[in-house]
């Protein structure tokens, strides 16, 4: 007994789940559930903003965290909605495919008893025999690409069978897109790396600055390519309303698809990624890396090389950067400050006028002490941990800054050492991503669109013609029925009636 109830309950739930109304509600729910993802900063879209938001809302943040509101599109409840929708979709497609399959080969249904009761119908009388009318009706409807069946003094016809096929194709394609999207997020990866001019990269995990693997992605899936940035060009607009805007970024790459493959060249530009196997390389950012040499208190070179500065302001490329010299003795040295690519002094304030490096200058504060790099914790190269460092001041206690143009050297106070600004180099940020399944997803949406067009614009309709003898005359009744819910059949009915009568030779004569 309980068993039966359970089965009934299951069957009832299944029927509810696969009903059209549920699909509708789930669709609206999906739309509703996406909204928080656009309002609350998302971890995997703008991590910086998300963490800032957490700091600004200490009370709400833990609650939001629990609800998964910082990664809505990976959250359990969002997944629950689209999985239910997918399930409902399957439950909808399967029976409909079966019905459609049967319906495909079925004959058009018999004419209803009373054709004139249908909303779109017409009647006329003629002296022509019944059989002639019906025979001509069959020819005529066939010509109009109707499937035709004659029986019991009437002709039944139907066309537009492909609408349902389009509809099914559309719904199946939604599942294909979902699969393609899923494959991409499970087996793909996305990473970014900043490489300066003359710098190189080879595709393995350790070389990335940031890396987001799909949950089932394997290290072997990474194609063994490597490249070197040989040059970077940018074109600065010198006039017009967007004066100062940079255009036509080109990073010239020498690359190899495999370690012992031949070397090839590629000009990497925005909107023109380089594809190597299934992996794509995109140019998505640029900036400057001033070359800096730090000598320590003993006069030895403690650090020398380009240092990546991150642009803080896209208009002028004023950039922020940090230099760490852990090898400096007796005390470690750290620098933190700004780079002005086209330096000018405006009312006593240092500014950059322009993004191009016409007059570069660095302006940094210097610290000595313990950089905290031995603790084992990993440290960002863009942040200076000043908790165990002291800022260097001039001997009179006033503020000390390392302000340098290229080629200049500044001695640090206290005999701590010196800093030299050797020169400028551009860097480019390259996004590297592998998204398997993107072809599947694209194929899916295209199929969906094709199905959709069929489903929306093919209008299934039925036409019946019945003729019978009455008072020495033939009474012809014609009716048409639109089955798509969006169409009118009045015009078509009128056309059919007109051509049916036009063929009536005898009537024309009389």
């Amino acid at each position: 007994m309980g068993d039966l109830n359970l089965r009934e309950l299951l069957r009832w739930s299944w029927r509810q789940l696969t009903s059209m109304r549920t699909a509708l509600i789930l669709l609206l729910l999906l739309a509703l559930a996406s909204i928080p993802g656009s309002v609350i900063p998302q971890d995997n879209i703008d991590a910086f903003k998300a963490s800032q938001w957490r700091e600004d809302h200490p009370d709400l943040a833990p609650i939001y965290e629990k609800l998964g509101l910082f990664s809505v599109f990976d959250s359990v409840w969002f997944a629950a909605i689209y999985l239910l929708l997918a399930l409902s979709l399957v439950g909808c497609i399967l029976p409909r495919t079966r019905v459609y399959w049967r319906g495909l080969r079925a004959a058009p249904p018999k004419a209803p008893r009373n054709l004139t009761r249908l909303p779109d119908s017409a009647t006329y009388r003629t002296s022509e025999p019944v059989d002639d009318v019906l025979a001509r009706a069959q020819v005529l409807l066939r010509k109009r690409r109707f499937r035709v069946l004659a029986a019991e003094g009437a002709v039944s016809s139907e066309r537009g069978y492909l609408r349902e096929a389009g509809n099914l194709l559309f719904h199946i394609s939604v599942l294909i897109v979902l699969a393609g999207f899923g494959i991409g997020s499970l087996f793909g990866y996305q990473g970014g790396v900043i490489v300066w001019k003359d710098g190189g990269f080879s595709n393995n995990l350790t070389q990335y600055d940031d890396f987001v693997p799909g949950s089932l992605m394997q290290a072997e899936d990474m194609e063994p390519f490597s490249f070197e940035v040989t040059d970077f060009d940018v074109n600065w607009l010198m006039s017009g309303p967007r004066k100062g805007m940079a255009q036509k970024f080109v990073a010239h790459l020498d690359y190899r698809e495999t370690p012992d493959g031949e070397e090839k060249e590629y000009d990497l530009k925005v909107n023109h990624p380089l594809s190597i196997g299934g992996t794509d390389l995109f140019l998505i950012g640029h900036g400057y890396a001033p070359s800096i040499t730090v000598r320590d208190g003993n006069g030895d070179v403690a650090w020398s090389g380009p240092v990546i500065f991150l642009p803080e302001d896209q208009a002028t490329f004023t950039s922020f950067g940090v230099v760490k010299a852990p090898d400096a003795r007796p005390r470690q040295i750290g620098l933190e400050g700004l780079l002005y690519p086209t330096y000018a002094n405006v009312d006593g304030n240092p500014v950059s006028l322009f993004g191009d490096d016409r007059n570069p200058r660095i302006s940094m504060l210097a610290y000595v002490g313990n950089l905290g790099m031995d603790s084992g914790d990993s440290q960002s190269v863009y942040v200076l941990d000043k908790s165990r460092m002291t800022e260097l001041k001039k001997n009179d206690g006033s503020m000390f800054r390392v302000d340098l143009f290229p080629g200049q050297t500044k001695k640090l106070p206290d005999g701590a050492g010196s800093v030299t600004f050797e020169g400028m180099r551009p860097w480019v940020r390259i996004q590297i991503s592998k998204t398997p399944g993107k072809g599947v997803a694209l194929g899916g949406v295209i199929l969906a669109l094709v199905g959709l067009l069929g489903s929306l614009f093919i209008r299934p309709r039925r036409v019946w013609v019945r003729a019978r003898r009455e008072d020495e005359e033939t009474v012809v009744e014609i009716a048409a029925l639109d089955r798509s819910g969006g169409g009118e059949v009045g015009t078509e009915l009128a056309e059919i009636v007109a051509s049916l009568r036009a063929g009536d030779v005898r009537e024309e004569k009389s």
Partner: protein
Amino acid sequence: MSNTQWENLSVQALAVVAVVYFLALLAHLVEWAALRKLPTDAPLDQRTRTFGRFGFLLTVIGAAVQLVALVGRGMAADPNRVPWGNMYEFVITGTFVLVLAYLVLRGRFSLEWLAPIVVGFALTVLMVAELTLYEEVVPLTEALSSPWLVIHVVAAVIATGAFTLGGILSVLYLVKERKPDTTTGFLARVPELDALDRISYRIHAFAFPVWTFAVLIAGPIWAHYAWSRYWGWDAKEVWAFITWVVYAAYLHARATAGWKGRNAAIVALVGVGTLWFNFIGINYFFGGSSQHSYAAPSVVQEPVRSSYDLI
């Protein structure tokens, strides 16, 4: 002609457009005022018909001049480009498509009664755009210079225009439904509820595949090239998706018995709401966090946002 001349031409053309649409609106209002007392089945008098034709003619002229304004915008840029680089340009193109759609479909679906609404709507939106959104002509940013921009935006603008038209019909449906028995005036000459529902459905059925193409095919392809991912749940993308889902729900609602008509009209209005919120709201409220931030263009718009992700 120099770029500045083209730009001035565009600005002046739009001023002309505003005046012409205003006159067209007046003509149609006179037409409809004359019809106020007239029962639906009574024939139109000469004067009314003249005003109606006059309004139509003015609308055609207005649309033609608006096309000139659009071309001028594109020619003013160096290099020449499609006039779809910022919100201002998107609005003047979108209203043009709306008016054009009305003009083209007018004969086929007997849309004469739509005239005052479409012209009034286009005029208002154009004026608001002129006052609040105007921007000088500037070259497209690097990420925007792609043939996919053209394809994506053309499709999105067409769909937006059509959805808006569908939304207007849905409002009319709901209004008329409350007073089904009016026999005189504007409302009486709006088609029957059934017909309204059907025309509205047809327009949505046209717009939906176009929107699908714009935001789920062309958009992702372009995003793949420009931003290295084809779908990133960026605020703009989220809302485009929401709009798509709501209109899918509309089409379902239409197919479900009991949801036709009134409920379908409500879902369609929710759809238009999400569409316009995406266009205006997202740019203003989340302009900075969306990569589609043409609301407040920074001088260099190349996407380097992710440089901050480096930890």
